[in-house]
């Protein structure tokens, strides 16, 4: 009687585990598919290509500022005049 109950319990546990795995596997597949979809984007529309190019070029413009280093452009402040020599 007890052995039968145990057997029945084991079958129940395995059944529950099977269902959980099935649910998780389906969820993982769905998530994976979603990731792949976003990674391998479909070929861009010509307008999208232009927008992408413009965006990349626009990003470059912020690095176009140029500047000399202030105060280092016209010479040293280290005095070169010598002191009086010995009498």
């Amino acid at each position, binding site marked *: 009687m007890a052995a039968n109950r145990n057997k029945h*319990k*084991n*079958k129940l*546990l*395995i059944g*529950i*585990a*099977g269902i*959980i*795995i099935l649910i*998780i*596997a389906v*969820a*993982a597949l769905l*998530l*994976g598919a*979603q*990731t792949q979809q*976003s*990674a391998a984007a479909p070929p861009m529309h010509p307008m999208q290509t232009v927008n992408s*190019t*413009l965006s*990349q*070029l*626009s*990003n*470059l*413009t*912020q*690095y*176009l*500022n*140029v*500047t*000399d*280093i*202030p*105060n*280092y*452009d*016209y*010479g*040293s*402040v*280290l*005095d*070169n*005049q*010598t*002191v*009086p*020599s*010995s*009498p």
Partner: protein
Amino acid sequence: MARRTFVFLSALSAMMLCLAFAANIVPSTVYSSISSNASVGLNYRAALIAAADNSKVLSSAAQFISCKTNFTATFIDQVNDEVPSLSNLTSLSGNLLQQTAQLQLYANEKNYSLFRDYMISTYNPELKQIGPAVLSSIRSANLTANATAILRAEYNSSRQSYANCSFSAVRSYALNKIQTYDNITAQYDVQISGLDAQGVDTSAMSSLLQNATAQVIGPLSQGLNKSTNSSQLLAVVRQHCLFNECSSASNYHLAARFEIAKLDAIMAKAQSVANGTINFTNATESIGAANSALASIGSSHYNQSLHLVLWDNITYASKAIRAALARPKGG
């Protein structure tokens, strides 16, 4: 047995779930890092100005001037003590002390250009004429051998104090100069990282920074450690300049070189993105003119008019690239 199987299968499914979740998260992390790098170049000029803060360098320069003034004024006092008839020399040291106070004021105000202009046009000529004037007065006073010997002994004693004072000031100047160089090159590194994130080839810029360290900052630092007196230190400082501050032919002109390399790299990247359709003719001509000016300057110190030729072309090239990028189809 069944329980173990259950636990194992549960753990396995949890791992799968984590992996699937992680696969979704990673791309967004990478994207946010690129986005934050994209804002790096925005405050470039402000960051460089802050990095080039020269208040400590100016303070050391003022300290060096004080050493000279104190030595000269002390020498004049010694002459007056020994030869009271030469008391008119006191006015010379008075002028020098007044001018030194003015220079100290400019240093406190962090006004590099006024400090330099005043030092060159007012202080140096004053100091230059004091030496011969004092020696000439002493000669015409016909001092006894004993009085001359006393003056020489006092002079030598003051001269030792001056040697210590000037060594300390020039050493401090060199240390502050190296620190400022490090601050500035760190900002260039930030700029390189930002451009790297945009896919720009930054090898030329990196190479310039490596050479700057190898040819200027490193030798300056080594020379500083080896020098035992102010003359050696002065020679080292005057032979290693990262920008345009050496009057000798020892200037690396890093700022101009870096900006030219940067603009070249940005143009190359833009052309690769736009399949060579951008018209960079104006920018290329200006960069060519800037490169020619830089080549003719070499490592010399450039004056204001050459500075204008060089930097006007660099600035114009930057504006021309911006204009060309605003109409990428060459229109």
